């Protein structure tokens, strides 16, 4: 079922897509962003993703999990090493899931 709140959220997310992807398509050559802002924008995606990923990997249900008992974190480190070596997206997901599943089955 699609309720009103969900519809509003989808509309806003669509706006977020248009507002960013079409930004300089619509403005054309008429506007130049100031250099300092252009510079700061370069780091926005990286910091936003880090701010989502780090709590996602370190916490479970809002509380801190000791790193050596945190199988998601251990699997993520394994996947990161694989990615750094191969730059392969699909392989990284497979390796991470295999590590995660193996640890889950061993420790349960």
């Amino acid at each position, binding site marked *: 079922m699609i309720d009103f709140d969900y519809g509003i959220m989808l509309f806003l*997310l669509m706006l977020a897509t248009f507002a960013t*992807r*079409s930004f300089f398509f619509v*403005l054309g050559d008429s506007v130049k*962003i100031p250099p300092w802002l252009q510079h700061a*924008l370069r780091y926005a995606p990286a910091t936003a*993703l880090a701010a989502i990923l780090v709590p996602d990997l370190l*916490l479970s249900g809002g509380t801190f999990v000791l790193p050596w008992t945190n199988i998601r974190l251990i699997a993520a480190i394994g996947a990161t090493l694989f990615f750094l070596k191969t730059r392969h997206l699909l392989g990284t997901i497979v390796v991470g899931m295999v590590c995660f599943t193996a640890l889950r089955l061993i420790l349960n």
Partner: protein
Amino acid sequence: MNLSTAEQTAREKTVFRDALRLSSPTIPGLIAWGIVTGMAMIQSGLTLWQGLLMTFIVYAGSAQLAALPLLAAGAPVSMIFFTAIMINLRFIIFSAVIGPHFSSLRWYRRLFYGYFNADIVVALFPQRFPSPSLGRPGEKLSFYVGLATSNWSSWQVGSVIGMLLASQIPPSWGIGFAGSLALLSITVPLIVNWAAVVGMAVAGTTAVLAIDLPFRLGLLLAIVLGIASAMAVDQWVEGKAQ
């Protein structure tokens, strides 16, 4: 050199096929990434219809993945919108790369075409048309539409497959974790210098420490402090170089 309309049309068709050929190696990766995102949408509690609407309306994988935990945690819609904008900010930079090629089109067509300017499109388009001042407008548009079609359709095929598969898979398998892994593999390439390392470390630490702030304000705080730290490192490096 003027070409007849027939010649022009033939060239545009060739260019469109060239674009499909150039983007074909990226298709399996996009389908996989779509599958993961489709699964993550269902695993986070969306119904099939909610998920289908999201993928066809929003068309922004990392913003969708980031919105899901916020949605599940009951964050206010303004926070979800802000997060999506932050995560999509790279697209503004992408739009500055491709947008000038199409500045002669009417505004609503520019708005429409901009919507399809995804990561792979912006990576491949300049290989054929490096400068906005070169190339015939019709051929550039055909090439762009070719890349965009390939990118959009493989992504949507993957997303729909992922959503249909997700209901067949028990939650204990932790398929949602694949979404985190996909997010991880688009985050790692963004570590381009020490400023990014520091910015991401500050953002990550802040996000963990401020997790209990209301309305997920910790996320906003983390992004602002992260960007400021990255900028500070850049200033410091520049100061040392001079």
